[in-house]
């Protein structure tokens, strides 16, 4: 298992009262928890992954996510069992939508 920590600048989103949870920690899949973070301009991500040595790929996927979504002000936790970048992106989008959805 590898633990990774990232912080990305991101456009501030709405502050939602809920904690959103998407996905399941199963083979080739992951779960993503999104809740309110401490800094409105920052998306802070903590990852636990069964697959070692993919830090750069995580960084690329998450940079892209933080650039294209209003993920500022969120704290994100990920438990991963070897999901592909495509699955990670999909789940990130779902989790953020669920998190922001309630605030609308």
């Amino acid at each position: 298992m590898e633990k990774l920590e990232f912080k990305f600048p991101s456009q501030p989103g709405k502050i939602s009262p809920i904690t959103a949870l998407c996905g399941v920690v199963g083979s080739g899949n992951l779960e993503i928890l999104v809740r309110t973070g401490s800094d409105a301009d920052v998306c802070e991500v903590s990852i636990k992954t069964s697959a070692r040595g993919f830090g750069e790929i995580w960084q690329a996927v998450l940079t892209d996510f933080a650039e294209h979504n209003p993920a500022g002000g969120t704290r994100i936790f990920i438990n991963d069992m070897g999901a592909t970048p495509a699955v990670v992106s999909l789940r990130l989008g779902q989790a953020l939508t669920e998190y922001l959805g309630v605030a609308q």
Partner: protein
Amino acid sequence: MNATNGFTPGHSYFEATARQRLQQILDAGSFREFLAPETVEVSPHLAALDLPGAFDDGVIIGAASLGGRRVLVAAQEGRFMGGSVGEIHGAKIVGLLRRAVAERPDAVLLLVDSGGVRLHEANAGLIAISEIMRAVLTVRAAGVPVLALVGGSCGAFGGMGIVAKLCSAILISEEGRLALSGPEVIETVMGVEEFDSKDRALVWRVTGGKHRYLMGDCAELVEDDSAAFRLGALEYLDTHGEPEPSLFTLRAVQQHLSDRMVRFGAYRDGLEVWADLGVAQPQQVPLLDRDSLVALKKGLPA
């Protein structure tokens, strides 16, 4: 989409995650989770083995309403480590059952989807299952029915197969499986001649929902649809109370189980059992839809 048997088909129970099943089965918006993610530790035992855990340790518990009835519910997530019971996972279910003894809801629902003990936490898992077994019987003795719903990819195996059979009733889908040892375990230990776990049709004829329903080991056979599980649970609760545990009942079960050992004990395939039950064309059973199979069972000689 056409409504059949009083429910509108919508979501495959088999395909759904545990959280989706709860949303689909319970009254809309009624589910209130106990020990939501982040309020409970992620399994340190898995971390010690260098494995990522899950926020809910593979089981979601809470309170909800079902057709207006107050229920407590646990849903195992078969996709996370085979729905296996580790220390936290097991303790959440035990806590829910003890809460049921204190709160006396109208029912407890266990959405079982589990291979049994989590080997990564072996001893803790086995003990937890023993605690769940005692707790289920204590809930029932308090007059609260406990329903097991079985229709996920992991079925109800190992200790959770025993737990399911300790419940007031089991609702199972054709896709659901119920047994003690998994076919893979039997094949590994006893050889492929004993049980070929890759022979999917055979596995279903021995452990599958239709066979368990025909034999009376499961009370109801339902379609693989969350709405059908919901309706099945509602119908069961409408028509059954929870009897006090009694010598009379267990004597009757003892007689029934002993009789059927005499009658069916030599068989090794569902086809043989079904023929003996009076099914005219047993080889057709796997092809029948749910309604036809229920009709066939009702028409069998007593």
